């Protein structure tokens, strides 16, 4: 079984306060694409438009090469899982899963066999006679997935599937989603505001902000090389400084020192360094970029600690607890921050 390929061409949706502007994006057959954007960026509206539940103002949609822009949802073969599951409360778990098959007039034996196989795949065997109101969040989410997968959609749309779950359930379901995708190969679009999900699940990630596609690519690439300041902030870049590029791979920070960089980008206006790539030491380190500054703030987050060192500019630095305890820095102390040229990203 394999999924369909989706092409979104210049899709524009106007909906009160929300606008999606000329979104163009391709999703390959069998790909798992994670769309990230801040809460309220209209990600649900985008998915509902793809599913045919809303009419776009402009643009075209193609599934496996055939245009589906004006096709009603029931003829698209696109599955949808809402954030809070939207299970049919008047039906049992088994009836929920069988809903789409029944509409297709599946024979009873085929129906039962398919429900049983999906229930087995998602660990729902013991819940088949229960009503949705009696299920936990994780169970309800599995039922919603089984219901959508039952009709073998060419494309599966997941609207923040992990957001309303507690952390333990979320981790379990995240693995489950990855496993299901490996097994079934259904083309999947998963929207979330959590970049972490893109890392564990996505073949590619697309960042949407203010109704526009800002960047799309493999998660590691977007994470390391955000294209602009918005994306950089969204992926947790941390240290983003304005400045101007100089020749020889150097970059002058506004009102601050010159950084050595491994890349050259004429016209770049920002340099960014991830807080976990910066080292902190008492002795002057061997590094392409090293500056002395004062430790001005410290936030204990348990496994990691967030520190701020005022050079200027102020660098945010993340340390593991082990590294922190070995160095044992004190507030107000003068320390060295250092990082390799390759850790500096320009955009």
């Amino acid at each position: 079984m394999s999924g369909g390929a989706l092409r979104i061409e210049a899709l524009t949706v106007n909906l009160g306060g929300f606008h999606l502007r000329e979104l163009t994006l391709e999703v390959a057959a069998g790909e798992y694409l994670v769309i990230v954007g801040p809460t309220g960026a209209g990600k649900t509206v985008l998915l509902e438009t793809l599913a045919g539940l809303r009419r776009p103002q402009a643009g075209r949609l193609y599934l496996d090469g055939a245009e589906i822009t004006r096709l009603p949802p029931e003829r698209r073969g696109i599955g949808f899982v809402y954030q809070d599951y939207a299970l049919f409360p008047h039906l049992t778990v088994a009836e929920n899963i069988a809903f789409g098959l029944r509409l297709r007039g599946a024979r009873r034996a085929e129906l039962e066999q398919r429900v049983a196989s999906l229930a087995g795949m998602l660990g729902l065997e013991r819940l088949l006679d229960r009503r949705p109101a009696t299920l936990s969040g994780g169970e309800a989410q599995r039922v919603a997935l089984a219901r959508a997968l039952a009709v073998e959609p060419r494309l599966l749309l997941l609207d923040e599937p992990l957001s309303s779950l507690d952390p333990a359930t979320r981790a379990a379901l995240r693995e489950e989603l990855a496993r299901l995708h490996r097994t079934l190969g259904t083309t999947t679009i998963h929207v979330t505001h959590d970049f972490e999900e893109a890392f564990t699940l996505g073949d590619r990630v697309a960042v949407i902000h203010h109704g526009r596609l800002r960047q799309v690519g493999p998660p590691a690439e977007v994470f390391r090389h955000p294209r602009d300041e918005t994306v950089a902030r969204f992926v947790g870049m941390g240290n983003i400084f304005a400045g101007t590029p100089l020749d020889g791979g150097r970059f002058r920070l506004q009102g601050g020192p010159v950084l050595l960089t491994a890349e050259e980008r004429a016209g770049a206006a920002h340099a960014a360094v991830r807080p976990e790539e910066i080292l902190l030491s008492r002795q002057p380190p061997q590094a392409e970029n090293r500056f002395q500054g004062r430790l001005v703030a410290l936030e204990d987050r348990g496994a990691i600690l967030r520190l701020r060192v005022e050079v200027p500019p102020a660098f945010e630095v993340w340390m593991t607890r082990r590294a922190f305890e070995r160095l044992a820095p004190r507030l107000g102390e003068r320390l060295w921050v250092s990082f390799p040229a390759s850790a500096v990203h320009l955009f």
Partner: protein
Amino acid sequence: MRRVRIEPMVWLFAALGALIVLFVAAPLVWTVGSVSPSALWQAVSEAEVREAVSLTLWASLVATLLALLTGVPLAYLLARYDFPGKRLVEGIIDVPIVVPHSAAGIALLLIFGRKAIVGRLLAPLGLSFVAAVPGIVVAMLFVSLSFLVDAARDGFAAVDPRLERVARTLGASPWQAFWRVALPLAWRSILSGMIMMWARGLSEFGAVVILAYHPMVAPVLIFERFEAYGLDYALPVAALMILISLMVFVLLRMTTRRRAGRLG
């Protein structure tokens, strides 16, 4: 054991409340209580009474089914869509509640009368509205349809529209999504709206009496017996109608309570 002091305010409110409850309950209980079972039985065994009661029940049921057929689709539209003039439509549906029912009867006469537009149009089909059963149905429909439409609209509004959207992505046409999702989930509200409308139709006097004094529905029969023969003669029929209405009412409470229990 902790004793909870009851505030003077609560005592006062309870006393005032008891007064109004008594005001409603006492006449009803008194009426039923003052009729001996044999007098009640005698009333039931009178052909005129039996015919009036069964005509009342039937006519109101037909009115309710007509509203089910036309009012429930409207209720769905009102719950699901915003359109220009929606407030006006909602207002029109609720107007019969505030219009004096005898005035409503006069208004219906102007449309359904023998020489009026609809009356003349439907006459060739053998439908006559004055002094005939269709007139009774029309009068009952007019004064009671608000109850069903409002209940059905609230029922549909309580169904998450995303359930129908999910159904569509699973292959349901709009029609199938309505039948398999919206309607089953709103059904109890619709049913209690139907019972409410039916009960309201049973009790209608003002509009019915203007369109069709004959054939006589039970409320008209009670009025006629009271006017022509006095209280003693009207009482058993009145008691009978109170009992029937109470049964309908209990039925209504049972359907609504079971719904509350299921959600809880």
